[in-house]
């Protein structure tokens, strides 16, 4: 590893920028992210900064139950995050649907089947510190090049295969219609 790429890797751990995505949460997990960004828990002590757009983010925090509508949105937003990227799943909902599992509008599957998840933060909702710990762990994985998307890319690079282009959203259609396409 050259010195430059080493510096870039350390910078990734020292300043992970996050983007949060509510996939259909009850808002409990999102409420816990707010104190995380306040002076009390102070995510910026780890260089964590919240960004409104996925295009600036290194780490995506996904909270909430996966619904038929949010599946497409998750894929859209995940594809917009520049590589390398890490995914942190908050709470029980992304893992299983929690108490909402079995509802007709809820996907009864783990978030892992939609995007590669690197860190699971258990809790309902998880404590702010647990979320902080999860982000720190994801940042460490990013530095080591060990997030699942990075590993998949390096595996593809070894096999010298052309990388599949992420599906481009059809921007000619209104937003709601694009979401509707994701429904079974």
């Amino acid at each position, binding site marked *: 590893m050259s010195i430059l790429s080493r510096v870039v890797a350390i910078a990734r751990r020292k300043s992970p920028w996050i983007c949060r995505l509510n996939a259909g949460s009850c808002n409990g997990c999102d409420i816990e992210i707010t104190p995380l960004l306040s002076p009390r828990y102070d995510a910026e002590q780890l260089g964590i900064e919240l960004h409104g757009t996925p295009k600036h983010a290194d780490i995506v925090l996904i909270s909430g139950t996966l619904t038929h509508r949010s599946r497409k949105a998750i894929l859209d937003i995940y594809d917009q995050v520049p590589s390398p990227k890490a995914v942190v799943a908050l709470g029980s909902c992304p893992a299983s649907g929690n*108490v909402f599992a079995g509802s007709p509008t809820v996907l009864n599957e*783990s978030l892992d089947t939609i995007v590669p998840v690197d860190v*699971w933060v258990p809790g309902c909702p998880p404590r702010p510190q647990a979320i902080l710990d999860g982000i720190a762990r994801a940042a460490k994985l990013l530095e080591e090049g060990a997030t699942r998307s990075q590993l998949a890319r390096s595996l593809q690079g070894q096999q010298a295969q052309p990388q599949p282009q992420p599906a481009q959203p059809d921007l000619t259609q209104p937003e709601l219609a694009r979401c509707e396409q994701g429904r079974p």
Partner: protein
Amino acid sequence: MAMLKTVLANLLQPSRTRAPADMPPVPQTYRGALVHDAGRCTACGTCAFVCAPKAISFTQVPGISVSWHFFIGQCSFCGLCEQNCPTHAISLETAVPGVMNNAAGDGLRLESIIALKPCTRCGAAHVPLPESAMGSQWSEEEKGYCPECRRWAASAKLRSAFIPAETATPAASPALEGAGHD
């Protein structure tokens, strides 16, 4: 000026923000990581019945063991299982469940294996009751009985309390009658 005072007063203080490992004190009733004690569990199924998100399930190897399974990714930390467990085998500790790297499979699941024991009277495999649940009304030998044999022993005791031993016919004595369960 006031700002300068604040800055000077805080200059040598340690940071007042909380690092991830620095847990603030939580009440004793805080519901964190779930712990299950296989030695106290009687596999009664009450916890699985009260759990709304169905985080608890059972599997069994007939005649050998019953396994209690818990998937943390489906738990809403409501504490109903702890409140309703008759033998206090489940407790929600104040510790926070750790962050997991692996997918929603291993690491997020707990499994407790409860080994079945043969009944000391009829030999049927059964889930042994924990010592605390047995109380003092059972003798040492009776503590190894299966539920059916305990039922039989309880009714035999009740009968002997009403029918004095000398008036009972020899055939009604517990030792001879006890070949079957009834």
